[in-house]
């Protein structure tokens, strides 16, 4: 993958630094305002700073992962993002903490009370093939590295929680069968839908809420300090998957895509019905029993997932519906040109 196209001064500076260019971390940090934190410029910069630690970029400096200037900026941006997430989820977390008999109950209550977005119902009942393609391209930022952000937490937990998380990861990673690797199934679905399944192909096309949704997984999944949030995020993610996946599979069949598209979502109805139980009871329940101090962060992670994923789904839904009056836009998105926003 090549480094993405900058979306503003902060992402331009970070991308330039990762290429090996000059970078003034203090100046760029000062130019990273809390007010613009959730804008595409800062979020793309953060996504790029994380991505050097996943698959990397062909045109980045070989040692970009350890560029201390970028790491210094990343820490400052992460502190702003974490503070923003804690502030925006505090009511949800306080209410969850006050009820329920166990952390699994409290996460389940968060999930039950969270608002939804009309995106998956739109995909099920109304979306055109082009709108479906836009959805798949948007989701590819995560699904082509599905589960990779949830791996490192395995080393930060122990005992029954570690065993159950390893079991979940093994299932996500194909259960010993490369052809069942979930990221591979998503790539097959993309190709079947007529999309480019190259890793990162659509990064220049996705909007800020999608980048936020991806970045919170990397934020929680890259620091031992936030291990509880990583587990809570995973719990909410799995616990809100089966219903939407069932609707999306029905929509993929309705628009007449080849079977590989619906197959990916059917697999996730079945797998995530399992994972929801495993992550609530066997991972979060036992991890909190062993280390009660992480419970508040487990709830923070769950509430964050519910908050930012609904924001991303609502934004994408609104983009798709707006494009019904402006037909060329989905194609512009797919070609990697920025949709007017």
């Amino acid at each position, binding site marked *: 993958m090549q480094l993405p196209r900058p979306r503003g001064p902060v992402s331009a500076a970070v991308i330039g630094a990762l290429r090996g260019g000059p970078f003034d971390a203090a100046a760029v940090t000062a130019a990273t305002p809390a007010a613009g934190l959730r804008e595409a410029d800062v979020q793309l910069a953060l996504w790029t700073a994380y991505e050097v630690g996943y698959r990397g970029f062909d045109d980045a400096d070989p040692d970009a992962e350890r560029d201390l200037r970028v790491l210094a900026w990343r820490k400052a941006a992460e502190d702003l993002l974490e503070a923003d997430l804690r502030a925006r989820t505090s009511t949800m977390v306080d209410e969850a903490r006050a009820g329920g008999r166990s952390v699994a109950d409290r996460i389940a209550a968060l999930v039950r009370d969270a608002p939804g977005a009309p995106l998956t119902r739109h995909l099920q009942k109304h979306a055109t093939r082009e709108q479906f393609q836009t959805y798949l391209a948007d989701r590819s930022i995560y699904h082509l590295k599905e589960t990779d952000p949830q791996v490192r937490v395995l080393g930060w937990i122990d005992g029954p929680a570690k065993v159950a998380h390893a079991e979940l990861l093994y*299932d996500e990673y194909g*259960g010993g069968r490369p052809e069942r690797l979930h990221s591979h199934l998503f790539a097959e679905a993309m190709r079947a839908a007529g999309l480019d399944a190259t890793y990162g192909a659509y990064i220049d096309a996705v909007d800020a809420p999608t980048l936020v949704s991806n970045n919170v997984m990397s934020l929680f999944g890259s620091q031992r300090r936030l291990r509880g949030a990583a587990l809570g995020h995973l719990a909410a993610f799995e616990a809100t998957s*089966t219903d939407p996946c*069932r609707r999306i599979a029905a929509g993929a069949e309705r628009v007449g895509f080849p079977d590989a598209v619906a197959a990916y979502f059917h697999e996730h109805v079945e*797998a995530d*019905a*399992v994972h*929801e*139980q*495993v992550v609530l009871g066997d991972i979060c329940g036992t991890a909190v029993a062993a280390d009660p101090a992480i419970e508040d962060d487990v709830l923070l992670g769950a509430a964050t997932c519910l908050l930012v994923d609904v924001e991303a789904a609502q934004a994408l839904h609104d983009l798709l519906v707006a494009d019904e009056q402006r037909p060329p836009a989905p194609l512009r998105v797919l070609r990697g040109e920025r949709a007017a926003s």
Partner: protein
Amino acid sequence: MTGPRPDRPDRQARSDRPADPVRVRLCPGGPLLVRGAQEVLDADGVAHPVERPVVAVCACGATGRAPWCDGTHARIGPRR
């Protein structure tokens, strides 16, 4: 639900140690989580092979993917 089957001597012969027991956990209001089974027999006696490390077997009767859980129990509400 069945574990390693005694009517399959070939499967027994390949292992020189006793198989792990099948473990079942009841999820309140949800499915049965089953580990270590090789197949699940549905109500008609049809065997469904277990193809993941742990499976969720529907216990509410409302699944659209029998015998596996598909999350429908959460929509129909707890049976209490």
